[in-house]
């Protein structure tokens, strides 16, 4: 073996071993550490152990900590264990880092939501409405800034929820995409996100309110069923009562006892000026109002206390001080006396959930722009598992079919090609691990597709070698000519597929990006295998002087 050949062999061996190590965090064994509450009892420990039967996992217990080892311990399982309503005695849990992760920067390949189960939500920022309110157009930069602000606030809200490894990012200038693994029913989160959270106290006007109520009946306006209708109704009523510039018409919302939803009940006229804002509130907590109903009790900042005292001063006695949440008036108690202490209660026929959400939102601040959910995709874990199985089955069958054909048609050379294919797969997986990739179902499809495309390179080379042999060249020359001529062909044809895939990566959304990335990396790995590794094998074969016939 020449020195050059030895070097090549070493390089190939090194790359292969490295790749296998990079892939280990994903396909190898993982360890999950679960820490229980101090007061967890033996029964509860048994309950948790049942989730991890000894046929698949190895569980060892040390005081209040469980160490679970096995295959397939991913984020979905983590989120399952952290579910407060199923395992309330679990304090915390995490998946230990694999040694390869710290040594080689390998990362576990994540499963996309369509494979591990979870919810994906896309929120749309309502800049149209904001522009109308502000009376001017917003440029791209403004929109980007506001959307980023909203993103940070949303992230805080979701963090408090305890979802493990949520992925929250912007999509374009005015959309936010959330990926929540393991969340099967996003209703609670949707409620949380639906509240913009603007909280304002505003003084009201009895006379104009009475006129507005009249106007609604005279104009025969029906109670609005959505924001657009509400806006339209408000415009009509404002005109009718000749609402002055410093005041505006809003709707008072009440809660329907049967559906438990709030609905607009009657119009009310308030000053545009904000007497007390959410930012003036220092702290908030769930509490009760004077009648024992659920409410939010809060204390103001020093400045806020002053503002509140002014608003409730004797000159305003008898006027309503309305509480406006997200542009909906929730209550409008009449001012009876001045409040100096900077402490009060926000009341307004709230439900349990609402109070909790409100408290959290006041603490963190209101969203800078209204958001609504325009896309929602939820996949349950069983469907996810089915998809994985289907993908693996398809891949296995494709591999077997292609292998059979190659071996029958090209004999031993076919076998060499198949070994190359397997190496191809390992290298591609290694690269994906290194990138910290998220695998989706289209991603699996991309992988299976790569199998077929990868074999193309070998076919081009082999057909060329066969042709050269047919033309009478000896084996050694045939081999080298085969590879030489084939090089540019393989390069060009693979490059066009990669170009198409690259465009998909740049412009595509989540799942499609995954597909494009698997395809691209699969092809790049393939070029390496076909043009470097296989070539090396053939050079080794060709260097044996007795070679007269080639099994091809």
């Amino acid at each position, binding site marked *: 073996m020449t020195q050059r050949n030895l070097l090549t062999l070493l390089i190939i061996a090194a790359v292969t071993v490295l790749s296998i190590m990079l892939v280990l965090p994903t396909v190898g064994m993982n360890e999950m550490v679960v820490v229980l509450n101090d007061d967890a009892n033996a029964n509860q420990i048994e309950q948790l152990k049942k989730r991890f039967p000894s046929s698949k996992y190895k569980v060892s217990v040390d005081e209040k900590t469980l160490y679970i080892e096995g295959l397939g311990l991913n984020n979905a399982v983590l989120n399952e264990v952290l579910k407060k309503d199923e395992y309330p005695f679990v304090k915390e849990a995490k998946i230990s880092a694999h040694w390869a992760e710290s040594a080689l920067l390998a990362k576990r390949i994540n499963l996309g939501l369509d494979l591990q189960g979870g919810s994906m939500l*896309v929120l*749309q920022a309502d800049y149209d409405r904001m522009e109308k309110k502000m009376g001017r157009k917003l440029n791209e930069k403004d929109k980007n800034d506001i959307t980023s602000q909203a993103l940070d606030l949303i992230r805080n809200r979701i963090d408090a929820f305890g979802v493990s490894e949520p992925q929250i990012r912007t999509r*374009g200038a005015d959309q936010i995409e959330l990926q929540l693994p393991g969340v099967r029913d996003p209703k609670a989160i*949707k409620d949380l996100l639906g509240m913009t959270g603007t909280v304002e106290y505003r003084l009201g006007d009895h006379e104009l309110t009475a006129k507005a109520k009249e106007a609604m009946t005279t104009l025969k306006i029906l109670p609005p069923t*959505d924001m657009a209708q509400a806006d339209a109704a408000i415009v009509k009523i404002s005109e009718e009562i000749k609402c002055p510039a410093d005041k505006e018409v809003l709707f008072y919302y009440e809660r329907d006892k049967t559906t438990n939803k709030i609905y607009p009940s009657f119009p009310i006229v308030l000053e545009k000026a904000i007497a007390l804002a959410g930012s003036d509130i220092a702290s908030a907590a769930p509490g009760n109002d004077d009648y024992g109903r659920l409410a939010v009790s809060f204390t103001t900042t020093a400045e806020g206390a002053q503002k509140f005292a002014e608003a409730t001063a004797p000159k305003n006695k008898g006027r309503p001080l309305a509480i406006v949440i997200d542009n909906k008036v929730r209550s409008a108690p009449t001012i009876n006396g001045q409040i100096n202490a900077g402490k009060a209660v926000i009341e307004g026929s709230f439900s349990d959930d609402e109070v909790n959400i409100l408290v959290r939102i006041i603490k963190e601040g209101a969203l800078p722009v209204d958001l*609504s*959910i*325009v*896309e*929602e995709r*939820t*996949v*349950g874990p*069983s*469907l996810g598992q*089915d*998809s994985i199985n*289907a*993908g693996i*089955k*398809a891949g296995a*069958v*494709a591999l077997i*079919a*292609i292998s059979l*054909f*190659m071996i029958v048609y090209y004999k031993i050379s076919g076998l060499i090609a198949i070994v190359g294919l397997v190496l191809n797969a390992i290298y591609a997986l290694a690269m994906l691990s290194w990138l910290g990739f998220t695998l989706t*179902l*289209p991603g*699996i*499809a991309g992988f*299976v*597709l790569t199998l*077929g*495309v990868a*074999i*193309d390179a070998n*076919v*081009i080379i082999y*057909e060329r070698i066969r*042709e050269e042999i047919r033309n009478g060249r000896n084996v050694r020359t045939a081999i080298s000519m085969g590879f030489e*001529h084939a090089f540019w*062909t393989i390069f*060009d*044809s693979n*490059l*066009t*597929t990669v*170009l*198409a*895939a690259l*465009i*998909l990566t740049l*412009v*595509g*959304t989540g*799942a*499609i990006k995954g*597909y494009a990335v698997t*395809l691209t990396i699969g092809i790049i790995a393939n070029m390496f295998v076909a043009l470097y590794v296989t070539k090396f094998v053939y050079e080794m074969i060709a260097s044996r002087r007795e070679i007269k016939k080639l099994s091809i």
Partner: protein
Amino acid sequence: MLISFISIAHMRGGINWGIDFVGGVKVVAEFEKSVTIHEIRKTLDDSGIPNSVQQVTTGDKNEFSVTGKLLKKDTTGAKTFDAIKGSLDGKFKNVQIHSNESVGPSIGNYIKNTAWKMILLCILMMTIYLAFRFEFRFSVGAMVALVHDVILSIALAGAFQVEFDIPVLAAILTIFGYSVNDTIVIFDRIRERMAAGTTLPFGELINSSINQTLSRTVITVFCTLLSVIALFFLGGEVLHGFSLVLIFGFILGAYSSIFIASPVVLWWENFIKKEEPKKA
């Protein structure tokens, strides 16, 4: 052939746009064993929800995929989903929802725009790359074959009423890249022989090059088809449309490379030659 397929696609109602493009709600739900597809359709019809239902049973679970058009004034898909769930829960016991996709109308527009951008970018890049690696006349031939493949694949998708969703779009874009593959192999051979100095007239050169590369073309398409057919039968319902479109695309890619790309190059060559004497 192009015209015939496009007309079939039209007769079947045009492209079957998936909810990713027009908005809607798609739910995969498991029902008790006795429930039939007709009962589900009827229940939804009675509730006034325009729908299409398909059986997607895996193993012994009685699963159906229910697609509902967005109800009027539903900007987020939530109302439609509630309506569908309410209607099904009302009639059937024990309905388990395994997956839910609710897409509002605005998303569809966003995706359509993105799709167009991608397609145009692809065409542009291919043309530039081909003109760069081969001569312009080859680029023309390849592009004609490419456009032919893509249009025909889309038409076939319409004719078979394949649901056109995001994975199918990805399939179309893959065909872009792949269709040029086969064409390049043939052109590469032509170029190689031209460089080696050949006395053959252009037409015969093309012909013989195609013959020489024929075995490779056929085998490669065969192997790739093995992959995609495996995906089609075993890859699950989500990838069905995707795999079917790819099957069309790959077969067409080979066909067009052999029967369209090269003849077009020849035709273009002759066309140019006729033009030049006129200029002179």
